[in-house]
């Protein structure tokens, strides 16, 4: 299983760009990288998924270097409502649910 490592916590101010990096040194060729957001007392919610290079959607960007041993979630212009725990997940693209590993999560606190 590809183990993931993330910073335990990060602080930011409203309007700033936040970058959260996840390390996954043992990522396999078939693995995708997915990021989830979790608010207190709720289940995680999908943010973005990618395999290599850069992926962007309406809420975030995901940067993956060529060696794929790490990935960076970028949140542009954060607001107070972005305060949450962010999880990096490395998963097998074969379609099997077997090889799934959540990181320990990064608590992002956005300050006014």
């Amino acid at each position, binding site marked *: *299983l590809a183990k993931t490592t993330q910073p335990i916590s990060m602080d930011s101010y409203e309007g700033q760009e936040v970058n959260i990096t996840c390390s996954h040194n043992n990522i396999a060729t078939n693995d*995708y990288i*997915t990021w*989830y957001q979790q608010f207190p*007392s*709720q*289940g*995680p*919610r*999908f943010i973005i*998924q990618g395999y290599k290079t850069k992926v962007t959607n309406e809420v975030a960007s995901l940067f993956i270097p060529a060696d794929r041993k790490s990935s960076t979630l970028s949140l542009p212009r954060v607001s107070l409502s972005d305060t949450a725990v962010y*999880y990096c997940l490395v*998963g*097998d*693209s*074969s*379609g*099997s*649910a*077997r090889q*799934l*590993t*959540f*990181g*320990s*999560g990064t608590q992002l606190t956005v300050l006014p």
Partner: protein
Amino acid sequence: IAGITQAPTSQILAAGRRMTLRCTQDMRHNAMYWYRQDLGLGLRLIHYSNTAGTTGKGEVPDGYSVSRANTDDFPLTLASAVPSQTSVYFCASSVSGRDTQYFGPGTRLTVL
């Protein structure tokens, strides 16, 4: 509204008792999962199912069993609960093993 539901919302259980946590999805997703979330440990996969009729063990399967008799339901059973199974349990589903997972609201279980 389509989605994934869990029951009960919370439960206090005496050690040694049997308990089944229910999970139902109406999105016709093939894959379903059970996670537990403990403070400081993130989400850990207990069991998963790639499709109806099949199940598999995740990272922390001991003390838990699952069944997948049909596409929609994926109950998690604790045959004889122990205090270390006190946790928040999340059920999730996805179209296939590598697709976005949709999480339920969680069940908070306390074993005394």
